[in-house]
């Protein structure tokens, strides 16, 4: 152990000498020098990074065209004390130990324009850091996503989905039900509907909740001359369970009439029949949509008969 520490100290001293003697001119050259210095001890980070976006921006040519000076110090701060001490946490901004807010500030220092509302997202409010999902040293993904702990049968899915399932076990289970949105099949991803960086929308009364569904299910979303009030005010989830359901069409109830009669406590008399002694014409097994065929809305009938 002492031998290892001794090597580190020698490297660190040499690095400090180079660091001190290096001319403090163009940021691009300084960044490139920093890269070489850090490389001496943290080679694993560079190897893991591959040629990801951060590494690509290390080159002086990249810095010229982007206007950014990218190097280890952009995220890890002034490294001179770290080098002087021969390494060790506490001498440099280390993402494992710094408070979440400070970690996020470092990332958002460059990425705030593309993730403007992350501070108010449910993820931020839950105390998650950018580095909870992303790794600045990840090599294989454009979004620098972390490698998730995943069940093996999801290995074929997109990296973003596997990462979501790491924490969000409930929708993962619901997607195993027979009727489900096609995430397991690779057609959709969690981010097809959810924006992990978006602010929390606690609006339960928005009346616009079907907009996300409408981006694909355009024919169901209208507008229509006559609209189903529940759909317009409560959104698609008034009747459907989007992640998965044992019921057809992702409905909240297996039998359609059960679902309809939950709200419709008053119907015209001909539904029941005019002979009080005769059994009613409808019951919990009635397929209401055999007549009310345009149940999401109609341009030609207020009761959705056509």
């Amino acid at each position, binding site marked *: 152990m002492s031998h290892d520490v001794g090597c580190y100290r020698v490297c660190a001293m040499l690095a400090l000498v180079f660091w001190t003697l290096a001319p403090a001119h163009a940021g691009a050259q300084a960044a490139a020098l920093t890269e070489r210095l850090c490389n001496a001890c943290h080679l694993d980070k560079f190897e893991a990074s591959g040629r990801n976006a951060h590494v690509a921006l290390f080159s002086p040519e990249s810095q010229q065209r982007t206007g950014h000076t990218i190097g280890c110090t952009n995220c890890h701060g002034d490294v001179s004390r770290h080098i002087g001490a021969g390494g060790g946490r506490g001498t440099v901004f280390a993402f494992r130990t710094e408070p979440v807010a400070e970690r996020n500030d470092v990332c958002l220092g460059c990425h705030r324009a593309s993730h403007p509302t992350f501070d108010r997202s449910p993820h931020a409010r839950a105390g998650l850091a950018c580095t909870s999902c992303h790794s600045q040293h990840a090599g294989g993904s454009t979004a620098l996503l972390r490698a998730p702990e995943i069940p093996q049968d999801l290995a074929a899915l997109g990296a973003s989905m596997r990462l979501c399932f790491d924490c969000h076990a409930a929708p993962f289970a619901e997607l195993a039900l*027979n009727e489900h949105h096609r995430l397991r099949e690779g057609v959709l991803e969690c981010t097809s509907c959810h924006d992990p960086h978006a602010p929390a929308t606690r609006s339960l009364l928005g009346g616009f909740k079907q907009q996300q569904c409408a981006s694909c299910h355009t024919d169901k979303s209208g507008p229509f001359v006559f609209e189903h009030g529940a759909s317009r005010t409560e959104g698609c989830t008034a009747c459907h369970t989007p992640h998965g359901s044992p019921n057809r069409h992702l409905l909240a109830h297996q039998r359609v009439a059960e679902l309809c*009669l939950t709200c419709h406590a008053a119907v015209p008399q001909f539904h029941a029949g005019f002979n009080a002694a005769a059994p009613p014409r409808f019951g919990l097994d009635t*397929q209401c949509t055999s*007549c009310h065929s345009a149940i999401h809305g109609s341009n*030609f*009938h207020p009761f959705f008969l056509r």
Partner: protein
Amino acid sequence: MTRFAAGVLLATLLAAAPAARAQPGATSPLRGSASVGTRSLEVDGTDAKFREDLNLDAGPRLFDLRLRYEPEDTAGAAVDRLELDAQGFGGEPFENLRFAVRNFGRYRVALNRHRSKFFYDDTILPAALASVSGSTGGDFHRFDFERTRTTADVEIDVAPATQLSLGLERQTRTGANTTTLTVERDEFDFDRPLDESLDGLTFGVRHAWRRATLIVSEELRDFRNTSELVLPGASPGRSLADAAALSFFTRDQSYDYASRGHGLRVLASPTARVDLTAAWRREDLELDAYASEQALGTTFGGAPLATAAEGPATVDRDVETAELDVGFAVTERVRLFGAARRQTLEQRGDLVYGADSGTGAWSLATDGLEAGVEVALGSALTVAAGWSTESRDADYDWALTATAAQRRSDTDRNGYFARLELATESGWRLTAGIEDNDIAAPYTLASPTDSRRYSATARRRWENGLSFNASYRNTDVANDESAWIADTEHADLRLSYRRERLQASAGYSRIDLARSVDQRVAAGTRVLDFVIDYATGAMLRDASARWQLSPRYAVGGELRSYDTHGSVRVAHDDWRGYGEIALGENYALALAYRDIDYVEDAFDAYNAQVLEVVVRLDW
């Protein structure tokens, strides 16, 4: 089986090809893999249900293709990274193609295409229990359609602080569809082919100053839906006991619409402690429809039936949203936040149809306020809590010739939320949350007046590769005006183990739903009582493992199983086992067997056995 044999031959030829042809290496600018192979399939039982669930087909295909190009030296290179992914080509029900190329700091271009096939042919009641007069035969829709979505996105960094973005999108849904409608108190089967397309265009500009960023976006969408209903030949209807019959029936309700969206967002940090976001968005939509319907036949009572009607309809809709979010860092560990939102929707539709004319108009206005605090109590404990309120005014008026109705609903919601997260020194990460809302005068009888949700999670990852995840969520929802309740309880447990040669995971989930109301339905002078009591208990189990026996051999397996007890019991067991052998430096041959058992009491059951032979080439 001939296709399978051809696939096996293809796989064998590929496997026998000289392994030295490709020269992989960690530093090679071109990396990737391709998995091609063939599938054999045997299905016993309800083929329609199998197609609805899995829709797999037999024969050779491209299972997966991944290509990455990253030049050694990016200085002066036009491309920093190029990615190509393709899955499911050659007959899979889900086909994905993704192409992306980017130069960091200059541009990003991404093309995506997804094609998916959907099939549905099902009933809700067994045929023996079906009654035409009560419309209890079931859900006689039959779908066999294809959905495609193609997108192209371009982002260009025209200057270090300025980015332009352009997005193109095209979606289509085409295929066969049948439906059953009640005409003259009898049920008839109609063809209703699907032909929809959506074209979208988005354009945006983003510019960042030192303390503020401005984002401007424009969106155009055009949707076209050819909605036709045709009786395929004369029909006496499903019931032969009445006189109702149709010799000709056609209904065309095709429509199209165009929408234009305009968005503006400003992000600002006027001081180091204050950040705010102001956003505004407006969408205008105009829809044009024209309907025609013609029917010839016999009425329920035996009289001649001859109807014809046609006419246009239009809908105009304006949606506007304005939001303001503010955050203020009181100290390094305490942050206050607040938000205000207003959303409005104004919509009016008009129609003339035969001798009828009508209108439908919606007016919705929702205002919301939210305030809260986030506190970091040390580096281990984070607490966020807040309060929110909303009020919504909804007006719906409609009229059709001599009939008219209106509905006013003013709904208010007040609620609070709290969440804490604890990260212990021993590695546990624990969260707990609660959200509670009281809602006055909801719009429907199945909308909550009280809603409370609890959630808790626990996670731990050990250095030895073992990880533990558990979560619990309980949602209690009730409407105290109708006595409707909808409670959900959801618990998940997962253990995973990941080492270099062995990866394994096992999970168990339980979902319990209870939705009930004793509904008294007024049908004119008759009053009917319905006991709606729907409860589902779903148990889901999954397990998977992969063991690299040696550098050359690997085996693995997966199991997914669930059992639900709702109105109908459904049991589904799906397991797969596979073995892989490395053939030379770049090739691997995999053999996989999968067995799926599906049982839906009194309706459908099938067993599917799937055998796949796959050759994987890495370079």
